[in-house]
């Protein structure tokens, strides 16, 4: 169906565009930047920040002069004339930004977002005085969820993206808007039977880092500086893809080996692929699937995603016994380091600090689990998100593109694995080509899993809301692999911001096209 086109003008530039697109979309497609905070392509237009105001010529009903409209939610019409930076627009836009600033207590000194922050960028670009109004949210609470995610009420600008992420996105509905008018705040619902699964989708959709991961980079920085322990990195393979966005490189230009070099520059003594344990896990889990049904009625459920495990434990305790007993990837890899590798090299495991680096917020919680301990100590000591490591790199002025590649360390198997982030564990038994076709799309897909001569019905799911649906059809698969984040780990709560459905698909495509190895 051919979509109707219309002719409009933006800043006197004639543009032919598709009818029904918003002013914001058309401007973006033509390289014209309109600032915004609340707009996110993953969710319906909210138009509440009112920063994207533009002037539209043509008499408005009441005043007869041109009117200001929010570009994010107003569709283009034939003959429309838009001005994005008139004096009138600047006055309103800047004043709204100023007032938004006064809703956000600045904690720039320790914020991983400092060098990426939209608020600071706009303040500088538009020369906005950020101190005319006193901060008004200084006494708001900071809601913390386990050690993984937090909503800092002192910094919230009321854009509601986190609520959309938790409800429209994940269907967990743990966050709500409480209170009226000025007093409104984002808070956990006061309802029994609803719990946070720590997926961090709220954090990855927040424009101002009010919803964010709980920071652990300071601990890592301290350990690297003190040099009292051997600080070892477990690097998730797909970090090299999404980090390109933060460092303005094309996908594929950043190799895992350059990241290893950067980490070693920071002081990490060794850098391992987080997926190092995956081959062993695949074997263990396939055995479990085959051995089957001892005490387990129904399908085997994956346990590699800590947010999914938390979901099952809280929402479907009846299915806990269906969870695979194989350890999660970071835990298994951490164990490999602290046991086998340490022994082989005659290192005291108590002198090793294992730091995992991945796009995951729930992994922070996972490090504290009872099952994630080896000889009473955590297999992984600290889990950092992609954002936190990006911050550490930038803080140290690391030019990732210019770094000379250094091999990743290996222990047992390949130095670099290339698991894309979904169906991680069972990949050796799947038709990879078929699997890779849509693995980053939201939703679920069923495949045939072949282990030796045995065939199993394998279902992979991206996004917890789709998993909720699948749990109603337990008899339609033998093995269910769930990643709680939409798009899988490359859409994870710890990924760089922005993360949108479109970017997730682009990252996935890049992941498949480019190889991690040199």
């Amino acid at each position, binding site marked *: 169906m051919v979509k109707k086109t219309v002719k409009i003008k933006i800043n006197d530039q004639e543009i032919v565009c598709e009818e029904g697109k918003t002013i914001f979309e058309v401007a973006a497609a033509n390289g014209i930047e309109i600032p915004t905070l609340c707009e996110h392509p993953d969710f319906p237009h909210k138009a*509440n*920040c*009112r920063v994207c105001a533009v002037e539209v010529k043509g008499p408005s009903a009441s005043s007869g002069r041109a009117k*200001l409209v*929010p570009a994010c939610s107003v569709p283009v019409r034939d003959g429309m004339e838009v001005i994005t930076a008139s004096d009138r627009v600047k006055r*309103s836009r800047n004043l*709204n930004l100023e007032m*938004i600033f006064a809703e956000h207590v600045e904690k720039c000194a320790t914020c991983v977002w400092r060098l990426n922050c939209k608020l600071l960028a706009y303040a500088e670009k538009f020369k906005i005085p950020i101190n005319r109004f006193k901060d008004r949210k200084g006494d708001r609470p900071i809601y913390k969820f386990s050690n993984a995610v937090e909503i800092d009420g002192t910094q919230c600008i009321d854009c509601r993206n986190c609520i959309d992420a938790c409800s429209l996105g994940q269907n967990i509905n743990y966050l709500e808007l409480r209170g009226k*008018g000025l007093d409104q705040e984002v808070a956990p619902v006061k309802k029994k039977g609803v719990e946070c699964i720590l997926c961090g989708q709220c954090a990855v959709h927040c424009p101002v880092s009010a919803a964010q991961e709980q920071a652990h980079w300071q601990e890592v920085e301290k350990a690297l500086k003190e040099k009292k322990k051997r600080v070892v990195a477990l690097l998730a393979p797909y970090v090299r893809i999404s980090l390109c966005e933060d460092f303005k490189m094309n996908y594929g230009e950043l190799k895992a080996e350059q990241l290893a070099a950067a980490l070693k520059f920071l002081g990490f003594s060794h850098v391992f692929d987080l997926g190092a344990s995956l081959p062993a896990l695949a074997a263990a889990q396939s055995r479990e699937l085959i051995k089957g049904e001892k005490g387990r009625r129904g399908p085997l459920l994956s346990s590699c995603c800590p947010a999914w495990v938390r979901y099952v434990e809280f929402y479907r305790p009846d299915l806990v016994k269906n969870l695979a007993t194989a350890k999660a990837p970071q835990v298994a890899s951490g164990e490999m380091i602290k046991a086998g590798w340490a022994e082989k090299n005659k290192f005291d495991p108590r002198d090793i600090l294992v730091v995992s680096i991945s796009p995951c917020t729930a992994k922070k919680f996972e490090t504290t689990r009872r099952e994630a301990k080896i000889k009473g100590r955590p297999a992984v000591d600290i889990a950092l998100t992609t954002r936190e490591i990006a911050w550490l790199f930038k803080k140290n002025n690391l030019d990732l593109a210019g770094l000379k590649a250094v091999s990743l360390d290996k222990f047992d198997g390949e130095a670099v694995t290339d698991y894309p982030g979904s169906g991680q564990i069972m990949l050796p038994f799947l038709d990879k080509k078929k699997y890779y076709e849509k693995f980053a799309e939201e939703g679920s897909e069923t495949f045939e899993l072949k282990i030796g001569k045995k065939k199993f019905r394998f279902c992979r799911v991206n996004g917890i809301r789709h998993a909720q649906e699948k749990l109603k059809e337990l008899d339609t698969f033998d093995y269910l692999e769930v990643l709680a984040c939409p798009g899988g780990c490359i859409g994870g709560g710890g990924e760089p911001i922005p993360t949108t459905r479109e970017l997730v698909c682009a990252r996935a495509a890049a992941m498949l096209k480019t190889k991690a190895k040199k």
Partner: protein
Amino acid sequence: MDILSKIKKANLIGRGGACYPVADKWQMVKEAKGDEKYVVCNASEGEPGVKKDGYIIEHFAERVIDGMAIAIEFLGAKQGIFYVNHHYFKRHKKLLATEVAKSGTAIEIFSKPVEAGYIGGEETTALNVIEGKRAEPRHRPPFPPTSGLWSRPTLVNNVETFYDVSLVAAGEYQGERFYTLSGDCLYEGVFKLPADFSIEKILKATHNLPKFPFFVQVGGDGSGEVLNQKQLKKPVGGAGSIRVWSLEKYQPARLLLNWITFFQGESCGQCTPCREGTYRLKEILSQEKVDWNTVAELLDNLPDTAFCALGCAVPTPIRSYINNVLKVQPAGAVKLPEETLRAIRESIK
């Protein structure tokens, strides 16, 4: 003649405050796509100083329900909803239920929760409240005639509008409307008088024209325009209320603060210019020394970027009071220091 032509001939305009031509709106809903349509009577009457809808419900409930029934039949609507504020619901629920039962029309009486507040009277907010959502306005477009209650075409009209429709259908409409008078006047209350009467005529006819220096606020004590004694030759707009203020009785600072406090407390909080803007205005206007330049900036920003009509209305009483009263009075008559008056004159246009 069919009812739509009768309404058109009578030139009925909406009596909820926006004065939109009734026939046009009815036609839009009629022509909207979809077979499930709704009719909502907005009886929230949240504008301070406006009491006419409560009066009409008390004395003419039958006509109001009749007007709704006419609309429901004309549109083939699935249901009517009488969206009434909590206070009126408590007082008149039996009366309303009786009239609905008598008319035999599918009309649900919906008691508006108190927390919905002033913004709960805004039509898209009313729809959200009926749907069980937060009391906040919706994006417009789409407008209720094409996408309203449960996204279906919906006719939203005021109590008095439906009353007028009933009169028109019976051939008894005489071009009158209900005015609410209050404030520093002898006879407060609701009065029925010709719709084309000027403010001055209404004050005279109700024996309320003051002998002392005064100004008025018309259309609502919250969002209405403030006019001085020389500006009373025009008709009353908005929701048809006149609030009389004695010039000497009130401190300008107090008046300004009252208006902004009202808006700040009723702001739904959805958008930056209103949620933050009314808060900062209140903060500034509460101080001894007011930064009038910032006040002007905040006032300008509201109609330009506010999400809904409440935000756009905030500057109306404040600006009109300053321009029509403060600026034209000699400094002695207005209780403000000369330099403050000068600063106001310079900053607020």
